[in-house]
């Protein structure tokens, strides 16, 4: 049963508070008990507390599946890139190295790659994925597009990423500021300084209006 079209996944990095609830919830899922599929990335740990939960973005051109020599990673017609097929996966790590978002994880004990499949067992019956069901700040949100537009008027979803000459569209949307460009140019952004430094410097409002209050 495919994931219903009206429900979409939204990642809002600006709302992430780094509580790791998603990691716990993911590890509690029955289909891969004990192992979390979510990477909680620290943007610039020395300077900032900003974190970013990375679930699989489910590319329309999945690099992990492109590089798989064993033909183990498949994409269902609803756009969900499934975890490696157990009888086929040869634990070669190609997908782990190739994924531009760093999503696939190798379970060396089992000799099997496991990745986020958007909780296919849950979402295909209309439930929220484990992570989105527990996220206290809804940095990981699963709902309709209209709901998201109503609740977050300052942001808008984007799903196009540019890696050099390659364009990738993803099933999962990233919530970006309303004025942000339509396409995330990842290769260009690699060399931009992180913004965490400025945010932290101003945390007590010394240079802003907060000082007077």
């Amino acid at each position, binding site marked *: 049963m495919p994931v219903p079209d009206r429900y979409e996944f939204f990642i809002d990095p600006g709302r992430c508070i780094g509580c790791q609830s998603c990691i716990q919830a993911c590890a509690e899922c029955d289909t891969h008990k004990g192992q979390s599929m979510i990477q909680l990335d620290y943007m610039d740990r020395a300077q900032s507390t900003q974190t970013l939960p990375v679930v699989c973005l*489910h*590319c*329309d*051109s*999945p*690099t992990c*599946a*492109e590089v798989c020599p064993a*033909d183990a*990673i*498949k*994409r*269902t*017609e*609803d*756009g969900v890139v*499934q975890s490696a097929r157990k*009888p086929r996966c040869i634990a070669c790590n190609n997908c782990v190295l190739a994924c531009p978002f760093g999503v696939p994880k190798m379970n060396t004990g089992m000799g099997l790659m496991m990745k986020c499949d958007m909780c296919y067992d849950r979402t295909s019956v209309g439930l929220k994925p484990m992570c989105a069901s527990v996220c206290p700040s809804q940095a990981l949100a699963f709902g309709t*597009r209209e709901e998201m537009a109503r609740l977050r*008027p300052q942001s*808008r*979803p*984007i*799903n*196009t990423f540019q890696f050099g000459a*390659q*364009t990738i*569209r*993803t*099933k999962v*949307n990233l919530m970006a500021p*309303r*004025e942000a460009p*339509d396409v995330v140019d990842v290769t260009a952004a690699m060399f931009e300084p992180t913004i965490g430094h400025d945010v932290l410097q101003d945390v007590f409002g010394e240079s802003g209006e907060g000082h007077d209050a």
Partner: protein
Amino acid sequence: MMPQERSPVTPVESQTVPPDRRPDAEQPKWRRDFPIDSSQDDYVSRRELVKFMALTSGALVVGQVWLLIKSVLEGGAPAPAARPIARVDELPVGGARTFEYPPGSPPRLLVRTGPETFVAYDQQCTHLLCPVIPVVDEGRLRCPCHNGWFDLATGRAVAGPPRRPLPRILVEVRGGMVYATGVEVSAS
């Protein structure tokens, strides 16, 4: 003031897109052999193979059991009635003739091996159903098709391709007549 609504995000296609986003016709051939879309991936999974093998061997077992039950039920059928097949003085020693027993059966072969001894077998070779020829002075039956040999006294296959013995017909001499009285079904 709310900023103007931009175009919504492009929904992803249900079909996987190649990395260079060129149409399928321009893609290398191997892409068709290794599709990423699970709907096009028609390899047999291990579970499907095991299921197929289990069901097939189960069907074979059921068939064998059915044959066994059938043979048990029909094994008790009475032997066909004794039938006169030749007069004793009709056949010289070493002579042979064919007969049917029970009537309508495949041809059987009656051989007079001595003044008082008669043997009878199915005439069809147990290899490929060619008619066998008695070679009485050698004490054997020969199948000319593939040079198969049977023992004339017992019907046992002694040389050549046949492995199973010839089915034996029980004969009895009563009052100058040779009667066929039964068909001996070999165990092997």
